[in-house]
Structures are given as structure tokens and as C-alpha cells.
């Protein structure tokens, strides 16, 4: 099975939890966004607090968790924000 590298980008609170805004993650391809979420939650201390079903975007396009992820894609996770 081939391995791909995706660039993961955390926004706002998620970046604080993960301790970084971007990081490269290796996943077995073909993969889905859900695979990346799992990988991130396991591999990055702090990111374990991310919800299992976060708002996700592949290449800045909002996708569902079953959306495919390819080598070189950027996968972004965006927390809800409520401040006003």
C-alpha cells in the first residue's frame, strides 16, 4: 500500500491544542479525511482533544469526512468559534 503525505492545517483553538498551525502527516493512500483525523488525533499530543468529526476542508474546500485525500493535499481543521 502506498504512503502519501498531506499537509494538515489547524485553525484557532485547534492550533493551540495541537501546538502548531501546520504539520505534515503520512497516511496510507487511498485515504479519507476521517483517516487523517484519526492519524492526527493519535500522533499529535494535544490534538487528541479534537472532535472525531471536526469541520474539515481539503484544499480549502469544505468536505465530508468520507471525502478522499490524495498525496500533497492540504487538510484543514476548523473549530467552531462563538465569541462576539
Amino acid at each position, binding site marked *: 500500500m502506498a504512503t502519501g503525505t498531506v499537509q494538515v492545517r489547524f*485553525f484557532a483553538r485547534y492550533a493551540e491544542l495541537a501546538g502548531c498551525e501546520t504539520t505534515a502527516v503520512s497516511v496510507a493512500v487511498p485515504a479519507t479525511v476521517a483517516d487523517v483525523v484519526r492519524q492526527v488525533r493519535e500522533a499529535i499530543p494535544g490534538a487528541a482533544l479534537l*472532535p472525531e468529526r471536526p469541520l474539515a*476542508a481539503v484544499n*480549502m474546500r469544505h468536505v*465530508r469526512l468520507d471525502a478522499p485525500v490524495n498525496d500533497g493535499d492540504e487538510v484543514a481543521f476548523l473549530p467552531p468559534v462563538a465569541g*462576539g
Partner: protein
Amino acid sequence: MHEDLPQLSHEEILRYSRHLILPDVGVAGQRKLKAARVLLVGAGGLGSPAALYLAAAGVGTLGLVDFDVVDRTNLQRQVLHGTSKVGTPKLASARERILDLNPNVRVETFETRLTSANALDILRDFDIVADGSDNFPTRYLVNDACVLLGKPNVYGSIFRFEGQASVFFAKQGPCYRCLYAEPPPPDLVPSCAEGGVLGVLPGIIGSIQAMETIKLILGVGEPLIGRLLLFDALKLQFRELKLAKDPDCPVCGAHPTVTSLIDYEAFCGVLAAPASDGVEIAAADLGELRKGNPRLIVLDVREPHEWAIAHIDGARLIPLSELPERLGELDGHAEIVTHCHHGVRSMKALEILQAAGFANVRSLKGGIDAWSVQVDPSVPRY
């Protein structure tokens, strides 16, 4: 031009002269603005610039929903309110400021918390809703009410140095629930009161909400429907997320399961606060207790930068996030009183300590703020 749109007075023609000479606004557009009814949910950080710009632009009717009084800590960002209004209702303060800015605006105030019981009645009479609320239950409530009533929800929200804005209009694009079907766990995302916010940030995001509202009224340009604007103040960077409508969305999808307003506090889990009976101690009582028990540990679970603003003499600092790993530093037999800023995080610390077997733990009710008010005024409030 619609004959039923209101006419402009000579004063208004002069006042709006820079609009009237814009090809995309003109007299027809200005009359649309005058006829428009916009509801602002929240007269705080986002609602302030939105209300000021919408009033200045000549939106005919501005509705405001808020139930708070002006607090000194609001003034750093809530530019609707002045120092002389501290302690007075926000809506009275807002009305006075808006009418001073533009007496042609009709201000309709709803001095109440927006709830499932009143939201449809309040929103029904408005064309556009601008959500500047500050909590998740109200975010979901405003979204669902707008979907049910078929109204656009001009959305903005802020966190520390980052902001989001969009236009959720389910007739033409996704709604808030298409993005965030499930609310976050209550303690995942701190509020502005807990997490802080740079004062200019709501100025930028609230102004974007005003801009989008005006574009919707005029019917010009490309509204933020189907796009989530992400603003990073530290990088001064705008990014944009292309949004997709969720066909399975519980409120705007093909087969909605939410067809009337629900209990949003329960939905967001904010009612699940732990029972605080007997585990909280009043500030005055803690003052007395310390005199009688010098071994008592006052455990401050705030962040080091908060400690630097103000702290209780003799307290020990272990931030909440580090507490689970640093339990070994505490004497398991000592009497411990946890404290934070207002008494929320200290309750979580209490749970952690109790779960680890600490038997004699209480939490300072109202936090260091109550300590300053009731016991030691030399400790500054923040």
C-alpha cells in the same frame, strides 16, 4: 424604482450624498436601505460596529436583542458604549448612540435573552438577521430560527486573534449546521471572557457583517453565501473556505429532523454543569478559613499571564491544563481550595482532584474576582 419604497428627505439626501453618487447605490439603493429592517443579535463586540455602520448607512429599522448592562471590561471593544454608560443597560446606551449618529433610524429594542420561546416572534418581522451573539446555544438558535423563517443570517464570530464571517442563507446555500452539525464539548472552546480577544478584531468582523448586510439589502456584489471567510489578525491574512450544503443537514437538508426550535442549552450541553452544592466556598469564608488553617493550599489554576495581572498572596499556581500531570506536587491530605478567574475552571480542577482521590477540596465561588470584591480590594479586577 419601487413606488412603495420610502422617500428621502432633503436632510437624508445630503446625509447620504456619498452613497447617492455611487452607481450601485444611488437614490433607489438608499431607499431600499431606508425600507430595510435588520435585527442585530447582541449589542456587544460585533454588534457595536455593525450597529454603528448600519445606522450611519441609513438602514431604516435596526432591531437590537441584548439583556446585559455595560461593564467596564466591555469598553475595550464594544464601541457603541461609552464610559459614562457603565452599569446601564446596553440597549439604552445603544439607542442613545445610534440616534445621535442618525436620528432617521428607528431603533427597536428587545431587552431579553433570545430563547426558543421568543426567537421566531422577534425575528419574524425583520428582513435580515446579523448574529453577533457570544455563545453556542444562541448561535444554533439564531441559525435554526433563520432557516425556519427563510431569512439570511449574516454571521460573524471571533476568538482571540481570529475571526470568521459568512452569510448563512439556506435558500441559496449552506447553514451553520451544515458546517457544525454537532456543538463542541462545552470546555473545548473558551469564550472571550475566558480566552481574551483583541479589541480591534470584532471591529473588523462586525464591519464585514455590516457590509454583507448592506450588500444583501442592495442586491449588489457577491455575498458570502457558500463561503466562510477566515481572518487571522496576527498574520493579517484573509482565507476563504468554499462551503457545501449538507444534504443530510438536520435543519436545512432534504429530510430535516429539526422542524421547530429545540432546547439549545441542553443541545450544547451547557446545562450539564456539575452540581456545586457544598463544594464551593465563598470568598469571605475562605478569608476566615485561611486565618485558622495556615496549611490550607489555595490552588490557582489560571494561566501564568493571568497570575501576572493579579494573584492571591500565598496561593500556588498550577494551570488547569498541567494539573493532571502535576498532582504529585500536592499533599493528598491537605485542605485545598481551588480558584480561577470567575469560578468555572476551578470547578473542573476540583473534579480532577476529587477523581484523583483528594478528599478535602473546595472551589472558590466567583474566583479571584469575588476575592477582590469581598476580601482584598488591593487585588486588581480584570
